[in-house]
């Protein structure tokens, strides 16, 4: 189990991580979601003892990473797939890692085979594509058969086949009772690959829950087609509703339920042709949650993400 305990990390003027406090439990895939620059990688680096926390701490099974005797046998991590000496072959890279943690040399070929790069194992890593490097990074993480696994943006650079493979792979790791902690800035990716999601923005904790919990707590909208859109829009505005979108095809209405809208229309004699509650996607939830905390937001108006 992984525990982040009131963790803060300051780099000179920037507070990269601000009092994060959460637990990552075994047996499920936990997603770590946040926009770029929100402190995900920093948190991962602190967990691995690479960066020193300014305040608080991160523990793995109750221990500091630095105090674990053969850490690769307890924790496997993929932070930066390209963080390998370009002049070394994939096999030699893994051999050195195995030897340093007293892992049987036979594991090297096993993991190379498993991630599907055994045929290029003798080649220099410098010539690897990002996808191959990701697979090598995954092989390194699996080398010690660890109970806790950390992956920082693992789908970057993978082809669709590789992305599908990795999702199923995370699930199977979790089903074996391991702790699987996966960061991403892509909500769509997290929605399909994670069971639990922790959302952060600007280094701060925003929310935590299952994908279902996150989407149901968020308010959805209702799409309406009716005989008198102009009249209905006016009516909605008088009753604390919000017309999110007024298109030719119909109205998208927020802050009112479909029941309320149906009743209002009936009372005004407007004929309803279609009344569809629209569930908020995880993407909408994420955008709403992190809207204020995006560090490098683009200046385009927010309307861009209301298209379903």
């Amino acid at each position: 189990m992984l525990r982040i305990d009131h963790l803060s990390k300051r780099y000179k003027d920037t507070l990269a991580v601000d009092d994060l406090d959460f637990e990552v439990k075994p047996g499920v895939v936990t997603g770590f979601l946040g926009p770029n620059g929100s402190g995900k990688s920093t948190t991962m680096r602190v967990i691995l003892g690479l960066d020193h926390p300014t305040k608080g701490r991160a523990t793995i099974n109750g221990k500091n990473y630095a105090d674990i005797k053969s850490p690769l046998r307890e924790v496997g991590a993929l932070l930066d797939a390209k963080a390998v000496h370009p002049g070394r072959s994939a096999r030699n890279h893994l051999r050195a890692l195995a030897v340093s943690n007293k892992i049987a040399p036979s594991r090297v070929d096993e993991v190379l085979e498993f991630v599907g790069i055994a045929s290029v194992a003798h080649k220099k890593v410098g010539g690897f594509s990002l996808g191959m490097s990701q697979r090598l990074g995954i092989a390194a993480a699996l080398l010690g058969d660890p109970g806790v696994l950390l992956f920082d943006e693992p789908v970057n650079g993978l082809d669709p086949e590789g992305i599908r493979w990795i999702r199923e792979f995370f699930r199977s790791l979790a089903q074996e009772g391991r702790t699987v902690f996966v960061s991403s800035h892509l909500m769509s990716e997290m929605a399909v690959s994670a069971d639990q999601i922790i959302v952060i923005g600007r280094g701060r904790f925003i929310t935590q829950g299952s994908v279902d919990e996150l989407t149901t707590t968020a308010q959805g909208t209702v799409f309406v087609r009716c005989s008198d859109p102009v009249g209905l829009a006016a009516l909605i505005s008088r009753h604390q509703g919000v017309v999110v979108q007024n298109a030719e095809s119909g109205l998208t209405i927020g802050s009112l339920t479909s029941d309320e809208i149906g009743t209002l229309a009936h009372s005004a004699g407007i004929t309803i042709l279609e009344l569809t509650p629209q569930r908020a996607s995880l993407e909408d939830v994420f955008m709403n949650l992190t809207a204020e905390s995006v560090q490098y937001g683009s200046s385009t108006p927010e309307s861009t993400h209301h298209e379903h």
Partner: protein
Amino acid sequence: MSTNENLWSSTRAEWIKFRSVRSSIMGVLVFVVLTLGLGALITVAVRSHWHETTPVNRLTFDPVSTSLAGTIFAQFAVGVIGVLLISSEYSSGSIRTSLAAVPNRVRLAASKLIVLSVSILFISEIVCLIAFVMGQAIFSGVVPTDSLANGAVLRSVVLAGIYLTLLAVFGFALGLILRQSAACISVFTSLLLVLPIIVLFLPQSWQNAFTKYEPSALGRAMMSTTPPAQMFGAWTAFLILALYVAVTLGSGLFLLQRRDA
């Protein structure tokens, strides 16, 4: 016991890493070729021009350090090997992979240091011995030669290998401090080459006081059978250079512990 076992594992891992990249193999190769090749070139040149050498120069001629002259070039190759051993980990980012595998930073550095110093010492001693024997063979019959049976000669040859090993460790220590290959290599070359030139601009009395403390002068003192004028004795020079290296290495280890990787 377990600490020793862990140190052994991480040292074996560093050994695999050291010999599995071309830059270290090439570095060692360049070092061997420079020491032997330039040693041969210089001794052949001395032999062929011996007849025109003045009596004074003949009197002060040192067949030992002359046969080891290739090390003056080879010291840069050795320094670069030491620098790259750590700076390449920073440039590629693999330091994070290494520290995730061996989170005890002093142990990681110690493993690298063991691999570096043992391999460079081993190769240096052999190469210096060959350079010496080859030089005497080239000199023999024309130029005066010396033999390892002479204690001072044996000391010079052994200290030549130690000098190169200390420089490799010095390069490594610079790498720990500066992390960037280019910065390390320019500092390393400046200290060995540029510093003596700058000292030449100082008043004579200052020169006499400072020159003997320069790393390259310490090296010359270590490789000489009899101490040159205004220089330290061989063992004193060795101790001073070892002190420089120890201080630089200590600062490097301190920074390695303190800084984020």
